[in-house]
């Protein structure tokens, strides 16, 4: 799917920076992972960066984003810094969860990350609760539920959609559909079509989740409608998971076309092609991000470990 995009240079570069940060941080994690400096199971989202960037660029700090196990990408896009992220992966007190969470449990309330959960599905309900809090308090923040395709099989997902729809809550449902639950393809876990199902409860939009500009545009419309009191919306973002479900290895069951499937390649090609940015600029961005990752890792490595007294009840 190619359609003409209108985007400012600044927005384009910011989207790219977010995606590159996620990609480069993920690749660094993958590279370091075999050395066991990070004792925590990681679920990388290489290939899925456009979803995080495209959506989170519309969100404010006050919007409450609830994540599942595949946290890194959307957490960074929402504002979690590289230092507190890496420090958490390194199990240090300076980590965003002070070393108590690990990869699956990231926390940064100042950037609207009230926590994430490793039990698939349940955090969807928490986002609906955030939407309820906004409605009851007559405040204009959103609850954002972020989940994978397989989470739509969990009863809590339906219960949450029903309640959000019943009360017209300001909640954005983001289904980051990589087509798999670990090695189980969607056809084996879902009899339903995700959009058909979501439409039973709320307006639903499908988007190419490997295309940052398309995702950004669709998310913009959905979020604007929610902010205007239009009730919950569902964004179905189809994307690809390049890595294995968990860990640092490449996925051996998903065929990836490194050009057509790569959200970063796509956006860079667009930016260069439309004259919004030069190749040198893009290389520069990559370098800056690499330096920031170096800094974060140095910070994490130098940070103290938590002390056992912290375990006292």
């Amino acid at each position: 799917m190619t359609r003409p995009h209108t985007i400012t240079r600044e927005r384009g570069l910011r989207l790219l920076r977010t995606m590159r940060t996620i990609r480069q941080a993920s690749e660094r994690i993958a590279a370091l992972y075999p050395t066991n400096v990070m004792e925590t199971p990681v679920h990388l989202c290489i290939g899925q960066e456009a979803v995080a960037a495209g959506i989170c660029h519309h969100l404010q700090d006050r919007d409450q984003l609830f994540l599942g196990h595949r946290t890194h990408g959307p957490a960074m896009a929402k504002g979690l810094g590289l230092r507190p992220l890496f420090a958490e992966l390194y199990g240090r007190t300076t980590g965003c969860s002070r070393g108590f969470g690990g990869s699956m449990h990231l926390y940064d309330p100042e950037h609207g990350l009230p926590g994430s959960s490793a039990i698939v599905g349940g955090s969807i309900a928490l986002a609906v609760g955030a939407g309820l809090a906004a409605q009851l308090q007559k405040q204009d923040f959103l609850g954002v539920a972020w989940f994978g395709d397989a989470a739509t099989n969990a009863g809590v997902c339906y219960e949450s959609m029903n309640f959000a729809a019943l009360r017209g809550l300001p909640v954005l449902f983001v289904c980051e559909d990589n087509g798999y639950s670990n090695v189980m393809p969607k056809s084996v876990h879902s009899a339903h079509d995700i959009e058909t199902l979501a439409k039973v409860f709320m307006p639903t939009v499908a988007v190419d989740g490997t295309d940052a500009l398309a995702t950004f545009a669709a998310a913009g419309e959905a979020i604007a409608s929610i902010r205007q009191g239009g009730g919950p919306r569902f964004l179905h973002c189809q994307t690809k998971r390049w890595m294995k479900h968990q860990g640092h290895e490449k996925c051996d069951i998903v065929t990836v076309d490194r050009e057509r499937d790569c959200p970063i390649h796509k956006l860079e090609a667009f930016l260069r092609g439309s004259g919004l940015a030069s190749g040198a600029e893009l290389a520069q961005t990559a370098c800056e991000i690499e330096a920031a990752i170096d800094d974060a890792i140095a910070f994490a490595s130098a940070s103290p470990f938590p002390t056992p007294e912290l375990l006292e009840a």
Partner: protein
Amino acid sequence: MPWSRFDRTYEAPTGGRQITYCDALREGIEQAMSHDPRVFAIGLDADDKFGVFGSMRDLTHKDRVLGTPISENAMTGVALGAALSGLRPIHVHLRVDFMLTAMDQIVNYVAKWQDMFGRQGKVPLVIRAIVGRGWGCGAQHSQTLHGWFAHSPGLKVVTPSTPYDATGLLLASIADDSPVVFLEHRWLYKNTGEVPSELYTLPLGKANVLHRGERLTVVANSLAAMHALTAIEQHGLDVDLIDPRTIKPLDLDNIIASVQRTGRLMVVDYDFPFGGFGAEVVAAVTERSFDALRQPPVRLGFPDRGMPSSGVLERTYYPTPERLAQAMTSMLLGEVVRS
């Protein structure tokens, strides 16, 4: 903070106004909602004309009483999400048994949320549930589960037995910044007792001595505490009756101080016998004041099987004040008591 809080001594006042346990709960909720606009109630049938067995009827702030579909699991998550987004929810269940549909949220989410992120944040969430019993309700509508919730780190568990405790502990639970499971026994709803009309809280984790005696320490909560009190009073038994009021945190110091005096321990726990609260009290007391015990401790509770429905079976299944009195008397005579 609009939540004004003060702690009174945790002994019941005297000479005051008498209201029912049900009204005491209602008053606590009414006060909490009036004093703090962040407090709201949510639950299946919470907003209907029955008002949760009367405990939420005719509240002033109806806009803050929300009904829900039969979706207890997601609704627990909704309450948690709201608690993380500036509110102080009270999630209510007409039967504690329905909470089982929400155990993922309760144990994996609500209980763990603070620990999981290094205890940086608050989770001001109260889950109220009513414990049922008898009249043929059967195995799925008669569980108590307080010991079960207490097993899970991260949850406080409160089981008031008197109207005074009901208001004071409910307000303390709502004011608490960590999750509290608040269990009310349906059979206590009509009991009356003194309740001050001004706002007060009682500390969580402080036991109440319901009766003073020298020869036996009986630990009992909720309906069991009231039954034990009846047994002791009707038979004039020389028993120290301690109602922990909060199963967790558990006021072990108070219990142990009593056992040090009496040398004997009985726990009346209206729950399944394996593990749980009764086992914890016996185990903890034995570990910490072994030398004070003169006699094997005793637990009384339900048989280890699901509740029957036939009335005649129920009358055997559930302990009664009379049976508690017999057990206490036997124990004081040094006989072996089998629960």
